[in-house]
């Protein structure tokens, strides 16, 4: 009964989504307030019914209702409760339902927080979001219904994939999806602006916080995914350039470009059409990612079990969205030109370069991801592109980006006087060069050109990001402090610096070694001794395991004890490796059991990963920067809604001179 309620709610949600997609757009066109208000109510109703539907599916999991096919395939009686809940989004159908829930939640948030916007504009945004909801609801109902029944119900379920039985993976998809779906808000803002043909600086101001929040969640989602892959799946790698990782990374890169380009559009009224294009691209790439993951068209560890009709549906949806948006763009964008100028040495130039480099980076990732597909279609054989290519290709745009980033933060809008430009940066630059060479040399005993470049770049961003906060701290109280925006920017960039340091050090100095180890035997990796003291059997709630007790010593001193496990899950009979990881701020020591290889020995993978925590910590700090930036006062001030006149040509010049304000 409950699953039928869920199914029925989903159909009602579709009806309301249609209303939400049609009424406000029509109402805005005809200037009919009743219709526009109806759109908001439809959005609320849609959210309510999707939530009911989601709750029904969760209920089915919690009560192990194996008469529901999706539950029977992805749950099991002895599955811990936490994973029964996370199993709801553990596979295609349920994760699509979560996607729909999040989309309607974003819509409700937009409806709630857009009271200060002109009614016609916010109605169009809600309408566009409604149309997107229609697409996804149809996708769910036509190809991927999570409430399909299974008759007769089996006595026990097929269990959740053991890899997914992990807290990291329980929260990774929701965060990632909040980010993905969040870009649909930026997309809807862009479409709404193009429909009305009225795009000024206020538009950028409204769009910015939404985009930043979406970006923030995407950052967290990707970071947690990488962390999970590291300890659960990756045998110690943290990024594999897997097509599905790339699918989440491309929207991130474009989203990052969008945030920066929005800054220019808001401050100076420039780059308008470019900003629109980025908003369209970011969301299109989110859709492309969905297509790649769910169609199974590309070889990936993430690929869902495949179904061609799903791939076809998503591809058609992608085509409608992209072609529709681009036609609208081609029609409207030419009228959006702005003749405000800026000199070569100005923040605008740096943000332009930021955008060019980020787009190039995204394009390279796209080429690497799709080229196997294209080459196969051209009968060029089945190829794959290895991570080494991505590593090289990615550094090419990233190194200049990092150098420019430190400079751009301290360059004025419009025009920067050359004489005073570099003064505040002399000290950070000097420190970066010294530390970048000395740190790897002293602490790790080796230095190469690329290594020094990476370290200098990392320290350079950290240093130049700290200039503004330190200055505002040193100034007397009451003097012009740092805005939340500028503080958020500094902190996000600081996170980027920490990330770069982490990546550089861990790539250069990680040690990885597969060894045969007997009980009582010892091996040495990177100066640490690993002794396998004991092997014993352990029982978990739904698995049995062999656990190794590995003691780590350095120069005879005790460092720690690790308990790597080899688990066998009782239902699917899969073997799973649970690595033992010794975490320290500046290094991880990683031990994973392989197989029993005879003569009482085990194959063991041992790794030393210096500074790897900085990668995820840096990403966390980046997201924190985003959070601080959206709490800036100017996003909360409810400006009286001006009639559609302010065309932004020098009319609304803000205090652009305020140094560092982004």
């Amino acid at each position: 009964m409950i699953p039928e309620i869920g199914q029925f709610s989903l159909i009602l949600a579709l009806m309301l989504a249609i209303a939400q997609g049609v009424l406000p757009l029509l109402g805005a066109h005809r200037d009919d307030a009743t219709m526009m208000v109806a759109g908001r109510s439809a959005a609320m109703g849609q959210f309510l019914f999707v939530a009911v539907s989601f709750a029904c599916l969760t209920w089915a999991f919690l009560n192990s209702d194996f008469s529901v096919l999706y539950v029977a395939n992805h749950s099991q009686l002895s599955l811990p409760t936490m994973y029964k809940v996370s199993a709801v989004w553990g596979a295609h159908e349920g994760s699509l339902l979560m996607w729909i829930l999040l989309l309607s939640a974003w819509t409700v948030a937009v409806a709630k927080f857009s009271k200060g916007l002109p009614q016609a504009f916010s109605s169009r945004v809600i309408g566009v979001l409604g149309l997107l909801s229609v697409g996804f609801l149809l996708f769910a109902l036509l190809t991927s219904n999570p409430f399909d029944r299974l008759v007769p119900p089996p006595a026990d379920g097929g269990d959740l994939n053991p890899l997914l039985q992990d807290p990291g993976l329980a929260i990774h998809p929701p965060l990632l999806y909040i980010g993905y779906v969040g870009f649909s808000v930026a997309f809807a803002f862009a479409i709404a602006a193009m429909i009305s043909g009225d795009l000024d600086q206020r538009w950028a101001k409204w769009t910015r916080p939404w985009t930043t929040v979406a970006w923030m969640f995407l950052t967290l989602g990707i970071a947690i995914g990488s962390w999970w892959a590291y300890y659960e799946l990756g045998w110690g790698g943290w990024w594999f350039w897997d097509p599905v990782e790339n699918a989440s990374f491309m929207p991130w890169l474009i989203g990052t470009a969008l945030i920066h380009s929005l800054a220019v559009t808001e401050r100076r009224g420039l780059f308008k059409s470019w900003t629109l294009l980025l908003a369209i691209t970011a969301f299109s790439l989110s859709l492309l990612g969905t297509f790649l993951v769910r169609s199974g068209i590309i070889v990936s560890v993430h690929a869902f079990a495949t179904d061609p009709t799903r791939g076809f549906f998503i591809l058609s949806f992608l085509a409608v969205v992209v072609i529709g948006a681009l036609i609208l763009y081609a029609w409207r964008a030419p009228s959006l030109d702005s003749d405000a100028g800026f000199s070569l040495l100005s923040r605008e130039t740096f943000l332009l370069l930021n955008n060019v480099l980020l787009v190039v980076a995204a394009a390279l990732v796209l080429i690497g991801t799709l080229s196997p597909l294209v080459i196969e279609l051209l009968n060029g054989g089945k190829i794959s592109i290895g991570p080494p290519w991505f590593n090289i290709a990615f550094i090419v745009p990233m190194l200049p980006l990092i150098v420019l980033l430190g400079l751009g933060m301290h360059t004025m809008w419009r025009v920067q006087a050359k004489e005073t430009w570099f003064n505040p940066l002399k000290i950070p630059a000097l420190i970066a060069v010294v530390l970048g060479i000395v740190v790897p040399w002293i602490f790790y005993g080796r230095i190469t050109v690329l290594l020094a470049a990476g370290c200098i770049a990392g320290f350079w961003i950290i240093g130049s990001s700290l200039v503004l906060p330190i200055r505002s701290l040193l100034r007397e109280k009451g003097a012009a402090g740092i805005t939340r925006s500028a503080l958020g920017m500094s902190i996000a960039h600081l996170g980027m610096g920490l990330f770069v340091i982490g990546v550089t050090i861990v790539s250069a100095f990680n040690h990885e070694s597969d060894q045969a180890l007997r009980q009582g035997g010892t091996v040495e990796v990177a100066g640490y001794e690993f002794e396998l003291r004991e092997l014993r059997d352990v029982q978990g709630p739904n698995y049995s395991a062999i656990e190794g007790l590995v003691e780590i010593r350095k120069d005879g001193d005790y460092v720690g004890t690790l308990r790597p496990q080899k688990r066998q899950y009782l239902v699917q009979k899969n073997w799973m490796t649970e690595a033992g990881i010794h975490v320290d701020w500046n290094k991880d020591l990683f031990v994973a059991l392989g197989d029993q290889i005879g003569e009482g020995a085990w194959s063991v993978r041992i790794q030393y990963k210096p500074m790897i925590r900085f990668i995820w910590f840096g990403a966390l700090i980046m997201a924190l920067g985003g959070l601080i930036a959206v709490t800036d006062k100017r996003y909360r001030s409810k400006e009286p809604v001006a009639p559609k006149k302010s065309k932004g040509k020098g009319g609304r010049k803000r205090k652009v001179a305020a140094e560092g304000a982004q």
Partner: protein
Amino acid sequence: MKPRQQRMLAVGLALVGIAIAAGLTLRAFQDNMMFFVEISDAVAGNHPKARNFRIGGLVVDGSVQREEGSMDIHFEVTDTACSLPVVYSGVLPDLFREGQGVVAHGRLEEDGVFHAEKILAKHDEEYMAPEVAESIAKHVQDKTAAVPKQGPECGSNDS
């Protein structure tokens, strides 16, 4: 310089930068392309020489052999028509099992053995890499014949 000229200059510089980047990455692209070669083709000698490529198929039942206490592992991979001996040294992925699908990166040496540098087995049991599934589907002639044919017949079965 007028702002317009300045902007043109900036755009020009950006384009030069992009051109250099594109050139560099395309070069690297060639070196990092890894072909998927069907087992039958590899056995027949139609494979890239002196560079890495990928093979994929099923791990032949009963073929997995370890040297006691050593990290080296020997097994055979089959597309159901031909099979190829593979040697790998290191820790195997969890889903590596006899009778299951597997993909290996490495090169085929003169000794006729595929020296794998990397072994991939997918995280989902139902999931098989499309190229492996395709290659197997192409070569399955008799579903009941679990033991792959060897020797001269092998090449001729190639469709």
